[in-house]
């Protein structure tokens, strides 16, 4: 095995330290090197996916310590799938932002790039690590990058959003640490597989208290209501590629962490219902908050929160099909919301205003971007024949399998709310009376490539979902097959 | 106050009021009977059978359009209703000129009204007849010296039957209608034809008194 999971983490770290040096050699190094690293991550992902398809899952231990004691990185079909998705989306977002960053005001490109790269690398770390404390570390890496990026514009609102994010993020880390503390005292280990193995022996009360700390801490990362106060502010104030990253990468990592803890480590009854209810509340509140937003990115942010709520609902249902739907939705949401943020950022760029009001008739200035936005809007609502439809469809079917009639109706009613505000925006873009001067900022070629690749994904998967479905299915299987996971990790000798 | 001036004024009024001999002569020329022979539709002698029947139907089915000017309008209800019952002659009220055969001018006509009357008459369809009520339509009657009332209807529209009186009672009206029926049967009630034939003359007279002339150019039916 030439490429191991550790490359995911090592490459960005090396690059992060190397960039300040390389920048002396070439001034564009800060922009190019992260691209190379992210692309390397994509290669690693694809290689690893290929590898596990042949040889089964990989558990790589660091520093020579065996699995329960040392830190290990695990690539199962599930984590591999998410890591692949995150790395590919991260690369596309980098591609999109390649030229974008020239126009950053008040920030310095090299810091931006390093932070962005660290955020993506940290997310991948969250996904592939098999150690609970290591996960905490990666969460903090992502967190610190994210706080900084939120406040990157050094503007009035940016700093405010960053501070809020930081405040809530501080709580998250504190509670996560407390949770880890309790678990550690009870099981005496930090390896997730081993914790899971020893979990039956833990007293019920301690288990639940620990679980609650985890749920709150990771719920903050996963943008669960009422812990998501930071999310709309952070999404809307961060630079647009970062917003896309939040939606496509960070929230995926957050949800992953929550799911990994809930599904693998604990075996508490009722947590499924908890996820379902909180997911639904999250979705509902987020969507009804989104409907009257006046700020485009803030609207998209609430929409992201809503989608995460739907993901949580699906995980809460917990059946194989539901998990399948949830993973599919995470993928779709990552792709589509990235596309929406990318397109939206060009709108904002051209209007110098984040208000939805000022999008009137903008399609004449930016026909292609508008098209992408409309496509994204239709896809995220779940219109066939776009990819968003299939994930929603499978989630609904899985809910129906469990006879959750009202849940289905609730989801669909919330979708109608979602549809309303998205179509209002699309309507404005295409059909409102246009004001103002002609386009000043046409989308650059790399941005177009990034966006069209995402759009292509939406359409192709929408028309022919079989391309991706086997991978998601095996990912879902891997997630649900807990005993296999434990066994494999504890028995793998490196 | 100067007596002379007063007398002068009075005499001036007089000269306006009472027509001089010359004026009367001129009026007689204007009154020239345009429609006695030229207006004939068909003589009784030359009538064919079809025409006879048609005239019979026409005379017994007179749809009247009562142009209620002046005091004569009040006589029409009496004529039509139970006491005098003109319906037994086949008379019947018509609401619009399109359906009407007979135009009843029931009294004096101001120049403003004349315009409407002409319009209404022209919208009626041939054969059409005009019955003029009372002295006012013959010679102006008590309005003979009014500045805005026409004196002789005959100058502006072809009148088939005049009914004298001020106002004529329903008996006279019925008498006039019977007269008209006779004229129709004999083929002598040719007002419409006369009007068409002498349109220029009528137009000239009409345009003399009607100031804001805005009729369509052609007499198109």
């Amino acid at each position, binding site marked *: 095995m030439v490429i191991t999971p550790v490359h995911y983490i090592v490459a960005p770290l090396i690059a992060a330290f190397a960039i300040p040096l390389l920048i002396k050699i070439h001034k564009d190094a800060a922009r190019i090197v992260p691209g190379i690293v992210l692309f390397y991550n994509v290669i690693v992902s694809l290689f690893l996916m290929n590898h596990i398809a042949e040889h089964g899952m990989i558990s790589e231990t660091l520093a020579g310590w065996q699995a329960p004691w040392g830190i290990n990185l695990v690539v199962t079909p599930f984590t591999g799938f998410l890591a692949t998705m995150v790395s590919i989306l991260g690369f596309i977002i980098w591609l999109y932002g390649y030229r974008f960053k020239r126009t950053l005001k008040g920030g310095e490109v090299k810091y931006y790039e390093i932070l962005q790269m660290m955020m993506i690398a940290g997310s991948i770390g969250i996904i592939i690590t098999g150690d609970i404390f290591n996960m905490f570390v990666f969460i903090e890496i992502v967190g610190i990058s994210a706080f900084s990026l939120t406040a990157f514009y050094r503007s009035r609102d940016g700093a*405010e959003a960053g*501070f809020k994010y930081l405040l*809530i993020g501080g*709580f998250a880390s504190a509670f996560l640490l407390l949770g880890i503390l309790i678990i550690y005292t009870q099981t005496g280990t930090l390896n997730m597989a081993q914790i899971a193995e020893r979990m039956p022996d833990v007293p019920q009360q301690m288990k*639940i208290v620990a679980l*609650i700390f985890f749920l*709150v801490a990771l719920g*903050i990362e996963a943008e669960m209501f*009422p*812990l998501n*106060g*930071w999310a*709309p502010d952070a999404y809307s104030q961060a630079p647009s590629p970062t917003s896309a990253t939040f939606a496509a990468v960070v929230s995926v990592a957050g949800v992953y962490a929550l799911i990994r803890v809930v599904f693998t480590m604990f075996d*508490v*009854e*009722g947590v499924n*219902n*908890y996820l379902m209810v909180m997911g639904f509340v999250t979705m509902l*509140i987020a969507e*009804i*908050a989104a*409907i*009257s937003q006046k700020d485009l990115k803030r609207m998209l942010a609430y929409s992201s929160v809503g989608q995460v709520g739907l993901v949580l609902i699906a995980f809460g249902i917990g059946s194989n099909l539901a998990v399948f739907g949830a993973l599919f939705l995470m993928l779709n949401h990552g792709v589509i919301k990235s596309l929406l943020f990318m397109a939206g950022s060009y709108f904002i760029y051209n209007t110098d205003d984040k208000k939805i009001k000022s999008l009137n008739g903008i399609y004449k200035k930016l026909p292609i971007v508008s098209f992408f936005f409309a496509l994204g809007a*239709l896809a995220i*609502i779940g*219109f*066939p*024949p776009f990819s968003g*439809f299939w994930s929603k*469809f499978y989630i*609904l*079917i899985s*809910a129906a*399998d469990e*006879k959750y*009639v009202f849940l*289905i*109706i609730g989801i*669909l009613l919330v*979708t*109608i709310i979602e*549809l*309303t505000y998205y*179509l*209002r925006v699309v*309507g404005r873009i*295409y*059909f*409102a009376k246009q004001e103002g001067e002609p386009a000043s900022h046409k989308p650059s070629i790399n941005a177009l490539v990034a966006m069209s690749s995402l759009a292509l994904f939406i359409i192709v998967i929408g028309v022919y*979902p*079989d391309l991706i*479905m086997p991978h998601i299915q095996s990912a879902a299987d891997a997630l649900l097959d807990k005993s296999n996971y434990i066994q494999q990790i504890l028995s793998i000798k490196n | 106050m100067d007596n002379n001036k007063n007398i002068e004024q009075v005499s001036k009024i007089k000269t306006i009021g009472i027509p001089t001999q010359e004026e009367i002569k001129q009026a007689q020329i204007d009154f020239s009977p345009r429609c006695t022979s030229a207006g004939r539709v068909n003589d009784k002698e030359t009538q064919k059978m079809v025409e006879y029947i048609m005239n019979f139907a026409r005379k017994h089915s007179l749809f009247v359009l009562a142009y209620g000017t002046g005091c004569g309008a009040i006589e029409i209800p009496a004529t039509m209703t139970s006491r005098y019952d003109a319906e037994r002659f086949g008379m019947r009220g018509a609401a*619009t000129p399109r359906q009407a055969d007979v135009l009843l001018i029931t009294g004096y006509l101001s120049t403003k009204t004349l315009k*409407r009357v*002409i*319009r*209404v008459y022209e*919208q009626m369809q041939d054969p059409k007849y005009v019955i003029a009520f009372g002295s006012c339509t013959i010679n102006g009657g008590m309005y003979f010296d009014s500045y805005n009332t026409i004196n002789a209807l005959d100058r502006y529209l072809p009148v088939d039957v005049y009914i004298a009186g001020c106002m004529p009672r329903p008996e006279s009206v019925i008498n006039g209608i019977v007269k008209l029926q006779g004229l129709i049967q004999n083929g002598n009630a040719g007002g419409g034809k006369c009007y068409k034939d002498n349109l220029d003359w009528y137009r000239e007279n009409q345009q003399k008194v009607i100031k804001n002339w805005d009729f*369509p150019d052609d007499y*198109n039916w």
Partner: protein
Amino acid sequence: MEIIAIILLILLVGSMLTFLIDSFSSKLTGITAFLFSLAASVVFFTQIPSGYQFKFQLAGLDLQWGLTDYSYYFAYIIFGMSVLALLYSIKYMEGKGRLGYFYGSFLLTILGMFGVVISQDFVSLFIFWEIMTWASFLLVIYNAYYKVKTKGVKYMIFSAIGAYAMLTAIVFIRVHYDTLLISEAIAKGAFNFEQYIYIPIFLLLGFSIKAAVMPFHVWAPSAYSKSPMSFTTIFSGAMSKMGVFGIGLVFTSIYLGTNPENFYWVRTILGWLGGITAVMGTIYALIQTDAKKLLAYSSVAQLGYIVVGLSTGTKLGIMAALYLTVIHAVFKGALFMVAGAVEKQAGTTDMTKISGLIRRMPWTFLVALVSIIALAGMPPVGGFVGKWLLYEALITESNNYILVVVVFFSSTAAFLYSYRFLYGLFLGQEEKDTKDVKEAPITMLIPMLILMIIAIVSGAVPGLIFEPAAKAMEAIGFQDVTWQMSSLTNLWGDTTNLGLISMLIGAVFVIVFVFITLKGYKNTKDVGTKDISTSGEIPKEWENLSFQQDFFQPFQRAAAPLYSMNMNKIWKNLGENLEAFFGFFRKLYTGNGQTYALYVVIFLVVLLLFKDVIFS
């Protein structure tokens, strides 16, 4: 390659191509779209045998496409109307912007509609249904919607409610009956209103919304009237019929006679909803002053009749519904085209602004006249056949005696707006501004005239439509559907001989027309509309004495209680209250970081306090 896929591909390629061609030459777009739809129609009419189907797998689901006689019937309407509408569109849309967008969406809509009728499983049905919906949404908001917020989105929201109701039903069919094939679901009794009653109800809800049934009809008038007219012909003529298609499909199990008594209440409710829709549509149509809006409300009413026909569940009733489906597409298509022609030539369809176009656009008027006669359900034009079938179905075969009176009331009141339309646009005094209006161009006239001829012929020889309709009925479960080429027979054996009626009317027409024309021909004058007997007054050139405002005020006063029930207002209030309610919840996000932190802590405490309740 499968022939259905080829047709879909033609439409898809056409859609993209027109979209692209627009950037080179906007004039070619219309012709391209027309040619592509023609090609698809030709392939469809010549290549596809009835009963054709093919199966494939997608996303782990067994899908099946094909054509039964039933779907074939609707496909006729779709392709026939599409070709005519696109031909009409070439000139109608000339000079407007964004033609590529318009025609691209147009072809996509056709694709969606065709997809709906060929789908033999629920997933493809839903997919095509949604394609149809959003493609048509793009067209509804085409006409530079400055009020997207209220109008176009209203259509979309209602469509979405319908679509999601359908989706719910589909999901449950999958779960309870473990199938996604429509025929299998029917065979397993999924629509039986017995065990899982919400399945057929949700499906009916979905389809009824597309068919604009009360109380979900409020999207229809504005959507119909605000779209470009060439699209509205399809919208009201073919697309709203997809709802009818679906309702028929759901009712198949009734028609199969598995247990008709059980469905009595469903049919009664639906029938009454249809009847009330017809009444509401009609009474609102007759107070409109915009011709397009009038026609839009009229469409709502006509769809109400169709739903009534479907709900009877008897042979004549279904025949009535299917016949009305076609004939409504024909005459309403023609009428929308007329409205479009007037809009194009005279600039507006506001009846208070134009009048007396008959001398300017005689051919258009002729089409309008015949279509209006059909709309009013007068013999000898096709509309009468539909009305006859409907009444006879209700009286002789169904037990809805009061419903028939409701329907009759609606169709009698339809005379009012029928007249209003003709009078408002074509009759009355000539407006000074419309003196220079020209007759519509030939490519717009041809489709209109074709539709007019269909309307006339179908009045005399309705068997031409009965034949496929009877086949379609057999496909959804009726047996031994009888029909005659040119006469109508009800259950009690009473006949109405349409051929004879048409001949008689024709003969009398010729005789009286010749008589009245030749009699006194020389003395007959044709005069203008200013030459009227208005108490001796002469209307001025600038005066328009046409009576256009509050046209049916006496009726309005008499039927005031009916007008007080305004569904639109109810929905609007609901929407506004909901938004206000949402606004309240939105306030949870106070913007204060400390509050958010407090939320976190409170949430934690709550979880800890109720941990035994939540996590057992």
